[in-house]
């Protein structure tokens, strides 16, 4: 048995909630977990760390009964659990927030939160009671969401908040959070952290999975690190450092977190003038020059995604013009944009980024078939294989072979496919909407390097991110959006977190009136 | 093994013929009666030392393409003769030509196609339809009704026999004050026919006519429910129809002799296979079943 597991210092050696030993799990073609062990104590937050595809989600899905282990043992509250099913896990007080959103999008917030454990009154649904309870839970979270709202109408980040609220509402003793913050912005993250601290105080054990290593220091007590499906190490968080953690994760030292390259800013490539689209894009104007990375910062719902979608032709524009290399281009659908040389890697990979039932190869070649086929439209196998293997290699996408379905990849590797499929063509402008969401540190650096490379090739890069450090770390110039408008533009040299935040909350005054809903739909 | 086909015992009396009955569909008791006639003939022939390997094959609904398939399959299965109730006069002709080329003898029962056959055993549908019309007019007159709307329920326009019955019926009304409404085609389904019949009654029709078994059941039931003075008449003699006649809700129905068609059909087929003279075409006749003679038709 591994020493680190038993001799951990710092945290009071309290009751063990979970003891996982020598778990093995294979999928066709992949050994996802090899002899992995893990402990979780009462009242602690354990960070489960590792690169994309290390097996974190798989391990947690086994603990919560979604997958069955091939071998190994799981003890909960000191008792061996032979067959862990989803039902058994629930009974044991294990709750999990999955990495991917898992909501019934046609149902309301309250209906989702109480799904499977509806409150009844004389045998009938007691919707009012469930609504009241929901309101309570949401309030505890400072979330201002109407319990009656249909979940599908919420933005991704709000859906994520509902998902969190749902797990919290079960009053679990063992709570697993698989990248809960990947879709949240700083405000919600802070709220989440205060809830986590409260839960910890109540004796809850929390397994916390995240690729945002900076946030660990706020909540984490211990870390357990996996690499390539194998157990590497457990440590007290207080007695280690981020670089050390990263070295264990990656298996080597990572030199620079935000590699920067300089290149000469050239002429203006893209000019967006007075763009209006729907309710969330209002009079947006900006320019993008050859060889620069422009970051777009903002809070949840600032309209950044909507803006990119309008530029790319996914959503229709009400007015405004787009000028590429000095000439106005008419973009009615993504095809037009791609033809003109503007491409977009979208933020929601499951919904917009991947055909999950198709192979990785087909996903990568999908937007590039025009380059791969002859006049008759026949796709050249050899050219396709060449392009795909090059992309896989340059992004270090981890997979058994390129014919596996995209859905079988780990979240981070799926994200790499979403980005990678756009790199095979020579575009003038590449828009990245939250490209590092759910990606491990090493892979993040790879994505930054890709952006840098594009920049050096003279491509204009638009980089939307909700993580302030990376926006400031990688961009040359920063646009800030709030309420569908561009509220600020600054050179990275002059940027500080405070300035950006003040731009990002420029129209946020009304928030203080406790009137958030009207803020969202104020323009109506 | 299977009830319809008697396996050839080649050792014994020698003669054995494979004969198919192919009907329009398989629903009505009418077809069952043809089948019964066939089986009766098969049994009789067996006693006289002739084994007939007899199979009844039918599409599940009136559909030309399916009927052609059934014919082709019968030929491929080595049938020596086919008794056929053709959906319509033309559709099956080319496949009959192929069948004939393969040496298969064709006998029509109930409804002939245009292609020449050994013999045709059928009824004069047009005349029978006209008779039905005349009976209806007569009955209305007896109630002092000489004008008003008349509703027809039929199968579909693709079935030749029922189209002839419709036309014959209409011809009886030439020169009268009655007005015949748009015919309702209900695929011979009893409940659907009844809906249409009820709609006719709601429109104030004074007389209703059903062109085949299912249509007639629908007409009878609708009248039964509405009560009153509406007169209905139809075709075929299923149990349900006879009951409606007996109770007085239907004036009557035109009875053909399906089992005679089947019985004579098999006998004719065997003769034709043997190369004997098949005989003249046969009109098996139509009887108007009314309250007066309905008892003769009950089993």
């Amino acid at each position, binding site marked *: 048995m591994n020493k680190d597991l038993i001799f951990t210092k710092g945290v009071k050696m309290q009751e063990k909630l979970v003891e996982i030993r020598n778990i093995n799990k294979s999928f066709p073609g992949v050994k996802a977990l090899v002899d992995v062990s893990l402990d979780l104590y009462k009242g602690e937050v354990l960070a489960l760390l590792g690169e994309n595809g290390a097996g974190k989600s798989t391990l947690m899905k086994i603990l919560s009964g*979604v997958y069955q282990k091939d071998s190994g043992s799981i003890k909960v509250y000191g008792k061996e659990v032979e067959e862990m099913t*989803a*039902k058994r896990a*629930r009974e044991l007080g294990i709750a999990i927030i*999955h990495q991917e959103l*898992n*909501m*019934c*999008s*046609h*149902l*309301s917030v309250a*209906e*989702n939160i109480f*799904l*499977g*454990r*509806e409150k*009844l009154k004389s*045998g*009938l*649904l007691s919707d009012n009671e469930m609504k009241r309870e929901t309101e309570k839970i949401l309030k505890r979270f400072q979330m201002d969401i109407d319990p*009656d709202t*249909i979940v599908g109408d919420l933005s991704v980040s709000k859906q994520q908040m509902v998902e969190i609220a749902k797990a919290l509402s079960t009053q679990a003793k063992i709570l697993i959070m698989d990248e809960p913050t990947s879709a949240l912005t700083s405000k919600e993250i802070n709220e989440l952290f205060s809830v986590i601290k409260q839960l910890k105080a109540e004796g809850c054990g929390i397994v916390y999975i995240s690729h945002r290593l900076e946030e660990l220091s706020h909540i984490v007590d211990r870390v357990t690190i996996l690499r390539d499906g194998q157990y590497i190490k457990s440590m007290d968080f207080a007695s280690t450092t981020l670089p050390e953690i990263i070295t264990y994760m990656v298996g080597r030292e990572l030199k620079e977190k935000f590699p920067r390259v300089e290149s000469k800013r050239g002429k203006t490539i893209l000019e967006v003038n007075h763009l209006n689209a729907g309710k969330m894009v209002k009079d947006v104007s900006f320019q993008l020059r050859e060889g620069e990375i422009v970051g777009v910062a903002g809070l949840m719902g600032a309209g950044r995604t909507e803006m990119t979608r309008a530029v790319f032709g996914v959503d229709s524009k009400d007015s405004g013009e787009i000028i590429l290399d000095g000439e106005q281009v008419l973009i009615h659908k993504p095809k037009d944009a791609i033809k003109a040389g503007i491409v977009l890697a979208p933020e929601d990979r499951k919904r917009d980024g991947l055909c999950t039932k198709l192979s990785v190869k087909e996903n990568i070649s999908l937007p590039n078939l025009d380059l791969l086929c002859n006049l008759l439209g026949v796709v050249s196998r050899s050219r396709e294989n060449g392009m795909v293997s090059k992309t896989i290699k340059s992004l270090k996408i981890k997979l058994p072979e390129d014919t596996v379905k995209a859905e079988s990849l780990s979240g981070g590797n799926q994200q790499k496919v979403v980005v990678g499929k756009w790199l095979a063509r020579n575009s003038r402008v590449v828009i990245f909407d939250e490209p590092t969401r759910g990606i491990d540190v090493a892979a993040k650096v790879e994505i930054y390097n890709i952006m840098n490379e594009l920049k050096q090739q003279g491509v204009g890069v638009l980089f939307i991110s909700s993580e302030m450090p990376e926006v400031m770390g990688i961009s040359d110039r920063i646009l800030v959006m709030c309420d569908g408008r561009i509220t600020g533009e600054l050179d990275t040299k002059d940027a500080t977190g405070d300035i950006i935040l003040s731009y990002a909350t420029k129209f946020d005054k009304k928030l203080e009136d406790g009137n958030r809903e009207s803020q969202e739909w104020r323009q*109506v | 093994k299977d009830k319809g086909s008697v396996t050839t015992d080649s050792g014994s009396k020698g003669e054995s013929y494979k004969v198919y009955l192919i009907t329009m569909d*398989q*629903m*009505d*008791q009418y077809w*069952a009666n043809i089948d019964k006639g066939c089986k009766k003939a098969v049994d009789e022939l067996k006693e006289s030392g002739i084994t007939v390997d007899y199979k009844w094959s039918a599409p599940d*609904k009136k559909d030309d393409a399916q009927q052609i398939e059934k014919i082709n399959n019968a030929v491929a299965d080595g049938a020596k003769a086919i008794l056929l109730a053709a959906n319509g006069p033309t559709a099956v002709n080319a496949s009959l030509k192929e069948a004939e080329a393969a040496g298969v003898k064709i006998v029509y029962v109930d409804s002939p196609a245009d292609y020449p056959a050994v013999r045709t055993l059928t009824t004069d549908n047009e005349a029978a339809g006209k008779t039905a019309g005349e009976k209806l007019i007569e009955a209305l007159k007896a109630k002092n009704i000489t004008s008003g709307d008349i509703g027809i329920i039929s199968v579909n326009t693709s079935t030749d026999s029922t189209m002839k019955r419709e036309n014959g019926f209409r011809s009886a009304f030439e020169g009268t004050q009655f007005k015949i*409404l*748009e*015919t*309702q*085609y209900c*695929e*011979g*389904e*009893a*409940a659907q026919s*009844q*809906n*249409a019949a*009820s*709609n*006719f009654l*709601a*429109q*104030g029709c004074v007389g209703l006519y059903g062109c085949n078994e*299912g249509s007639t*059941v*629908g007409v009878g*039931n609708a009248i039964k*429910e509405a009560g009153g003075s509406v007169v209905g008449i139809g075709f075929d003699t*299923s*149990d*349900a129809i006879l*009951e409606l006649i007996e109770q007085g809700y239907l004036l009557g129905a035109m009875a053909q002799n399906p089992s005679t068609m089947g019985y004579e059909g098999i006998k004719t087929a065997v003769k034709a296979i043997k190369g004997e003279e098949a005989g003249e075409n046969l009109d098996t006749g139509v009887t108007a079943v009314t309250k007066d003679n309905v008892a003769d038709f009950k089993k």
Partner: protein
Amino acid sequence: MNLAKKMKASRGMGQVITVTIGLIILCIVFGILNPNFFSGRNAGNLFRQIAPILLIGVGQSYVLITGNIDLSIGSLVGMSCMVSATLMTKGMNPWMAVLLTLFSCLLVGLANGLLVAKLKLPPFIATLGTMTIARGIAQIVNNNYNTDSIGEKAEGFRNFFYYGKSFGLYNTIWIALVLWVIFNFILSKTRTGRHIYAIGSNLEAAKLSGVDIVGTTVKAFLVSSICACTVGLIICATSGMGTMDAGNGYELYAVAASVIGGVSTLGGQGNILGTIIGAAIWGVLQNGLQFVGAPVAIRNIVIGIIVIVSVLLDVIVRSGKFHNKAIKV
């Protein structure tokens, strides 16, 4: 404002409103072309013709909301009609026959649910299979013939399901209404109803939330088979005999009634209030077109256009093309 919000929140109510307006227009047109259409006599007649479509529509809606489809409905109608009639002609007490028929239909519903949820067959295939089998049973049960008349002894049965009236309305209509009320209640007020929506909306999420997928799916298919069974009994009572072909094509009418009424074929969306309107449109078209003496040939074209337009209107309204304008004004 508040009403509008409620409507929006309620599943698929928008479509119900659009389609209701369409229905009213249809009735007015038919009434102008033939005033008999509005006669008291036709009212009862018309409602009684709508009732079976409503019932199969309710059954199909349940299944569609779970994200599945039930193609066996039409054949179950036929099977119910033939099984009950055969038993009665063999001399069985009609109510006993009804019970046995219901039992046999429930078995098919159970099979549907298990094939789909337990054995994970695509619903289209599973119910295409049971559709063929149930039709086969309808045929084999009386040795491939329609039955004889179910006779005098069954008069009570026939009145109960079709010919009789209670409180001025045909029993058929009452039966449909009572079943509708029960099933609407289950769908909107009980846990089972909630779970039916949940598995149709996101099966995985529902499963992870501890919803009993197999049980819930089976329940939906059972409701569908109860509805189909009832329609089969109604048809048997109507014609007083068993017809092997009864219910042919009803599975698609059922889908039409559901979807026109706002149920999505993708699951998770809609309610059976809309199904009333969907069924009514279908029934009014069949009845009204006969009343105005439309030649059979153009009927199908008219029906087809109305089906498309009714749903299209809703799509346009929802897609916000009108919505935006309304706001701007």
